[in-house]
């Protein structure tokens, strides 16, 4: 079996679900003949036609609002935003409408939409193409926020998100789109939402991360293993609702926790994870929880963006810090 990249796994999941379910429709800018700016919808217009793979005019609020209208009629729209930085015009539609429709109609109307967007920095893109503001959506009641970090999880989690009866913000780490390839059988098997994935087990420290930072975190864990420190690595995957139980169980075992995310530190999802560990797992801790995050700055343009991103060394340093506590 040929190995595929994360973006190819997205395409494979979309194609699978469009074959399996006639209600799945795609809409977004340049997703038709062009196959999307990252080629996530490559070839889909040829197989499914322009009725189901719909190029929209250039207006993000429109993409979200139209997807909401479609979803209320039983379609399962998957809406693509070209970059996370361009979702903001659609926030009224996502926060005020998609996230609330079930609640405000007491379940009479529902909104099974997937809002997809590439996110994160590190691909030398122009400004506004490097956002990681997942905390904003995680703060919104009624939404799910899902972030895959490998081709297999991209495939399985996207299938699960499309099949989910509620709105999902599905953020694809653009830095990993073409990074590592994997065998991803096109078997239609979804992965569970609302749970973390433990990528590596270890008894000494828990590393909690998601999205593209999984790459540096796994590399740091490998390096630490050579020094005799066994790190457990948890890919949160579903940022909201957060599977804090898996994280707490790991922290109970290791007594140490470092949280790594590329989003700015203040009010990042790491702050909430840290708070929940303090509330529910303080007695497990042998050392203070540490965060390795992006800075509270605007993501710098390409020449400096590598300085903004948390590095493998920063993660190792943070682990060494927490290991110093007895």
């Amino acid at each position, binding site marked *: 079996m040929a190995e595929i990249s994360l973006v190819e796994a997205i395409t494979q999941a979309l194609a699978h679900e469009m074959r399996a379910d006639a209600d799945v429709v795609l809409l977004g800018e340049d997703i038709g003949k062009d196959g999307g700016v990252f080629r996530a919808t490559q070839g889909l217009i040829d197989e499914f036609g322009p009725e189901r793979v719909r190029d929209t005019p250039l207006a993000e609020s*429109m993409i979200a609002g*139209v997807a909401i209208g479609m979803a209320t009629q039983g379609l399962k729209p998957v809406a693509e935003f070209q970059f996370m930085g361009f979702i903001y015009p659609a926030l009224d539609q996502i926060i005020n409408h998609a996230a609330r429709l079930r609640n405000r109609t*007491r379940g009479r109307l529902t909104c099974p939409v997937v809002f997809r967007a590439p996110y994160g920095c590190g691909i030398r893109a122009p400004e506004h193409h490097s956002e990681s503001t997942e905390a904003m959506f995680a703060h919104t009641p009624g939404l799910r926020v899902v972030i895959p970090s490998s081709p297999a999880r991209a495939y399985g989690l996207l299938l699960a998100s499309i099949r989910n009866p509620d709105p999902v913000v599905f953020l694809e780490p653009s830095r990993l789109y073409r990074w590592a390839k994997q065998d991803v059988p096109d078997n239609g098997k979804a992965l569970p939402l609302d749970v973390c994935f433990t990528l590596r087990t270890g008894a000494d420290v828990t590393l909690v991360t998601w999205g593209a930072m999984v790459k540096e975190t796994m590399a740091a864990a490998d390096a630490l293993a050579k020094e005799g420190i066994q790190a457990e690595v948890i890919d949160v995957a579903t940022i909201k609702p957060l599977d804090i139980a898996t994280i707490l169980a790991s922290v109970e075992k290791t007594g140490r926790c470092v949280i790594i995310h590329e989003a700015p530190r203040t009010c990042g999802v790491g702050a909430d994870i840290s708070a929940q560990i303090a509330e529910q797992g303080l007695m497990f801790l042998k050392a203070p929880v540490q965060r390795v995050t992006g800075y509270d700055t605007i993501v710098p343009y390409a020449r400096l963006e590598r300085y903004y991103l948390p590095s493998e060394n920063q993660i190792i340093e943070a682990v060494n810090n927490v290991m110093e506590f007895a």
Partner: protein
Amino acid sequence: MNIVARFEIPYYQYLNETSTVIDTLPEFAQDPQHLQRLYRLMVLIRVFDSKAIALQRTGKLGTYPSSRGQEAVFVGMGDALAKTDLFVPYYRDFGTLIQRGAKLSDFLMYWGGDERGNSYSDDKTDFPFSVPVGSQPLHAAGIASAFKIRKEKRAVLVTCGDGATSQGDFYEALNLAGIWQLPVVFVVSNNQWAISVPRSAQTGAKTIAQKAIAAGFSGEQVDGNDVIAVRERVASALKKARENNEPTLLEILSYRQSDHTTADDASRYEPKGVRETEWVKEPIGRLRRYLESIQAWSETDEQKLLAECGETVDQAVAEYQNCPPQPIESIFDYLYETLPDIYAEQREDVKKKEVPVHG
């Protein structure tokens, strides 16, 4: 120099402000019983409206936006809609929704602070009000896209106010409807005011209707105080939508004979005397005078109708006031189809909460 585009905006009116028929009446309007039915609904809406304001003034209802002066718009639209069409309202439109299966008590529940008011008793397809102004034309475009994809002969009717036409979402929806040829009718219920800002301060264009031209389809103005014109033009536009996937923009002109909501005081900004000048055009008296002129209505009919409407409204008020609030934990029960486990603790916690006292 060549002229590459020209456009015209027609204005429709059948019954003028002196209740004179100025054009050949459409077929439905030649049936006095049909007009009586529309008249009765308009009166019911006005009686309900007065009652709702009285309830708010006595602390028994939350902030309420009056529909006084716009009754013909709501009734004409409701009468024109087919059962299988779908209606996406703005927040004054209860008068249309009660023709679609929603109950008057639903709207007391809604404005009285109970989400169940949006579950619309016998109307399970239409949308709830969109409180963020102008978001809903995009939902209508999405619904219309679904109808078209499924090749269903159904139309979507969406309304907003004149203020909402300044929103980007309004233009985005028109633009898409023109490109995708969607079975949608956009109604702008132009009551001349967006809270304190007059229509003249929302757009430099002569009409709102002409905004359709830029989107590639036709727009027209309709006298919103003439229920015959509203019913006829909305029905005609819905038919074009259903049969030819052709969108239309209708700017329906009326005058807001009230404050914006019960929380507003229009005397701060509305020029003195304008409301009174506009009152001579109002829709209920206009149709009543016409019905009387063709011997299809009498003072006895009027008194009987007012008594019936009073009873209907009192019954709705009783239903609302006798309905206990939802259990507090219900705030968690419609967030997701199945509440994620991590919120179970918060759901249990709120059940134990004492009723807060606000002072």
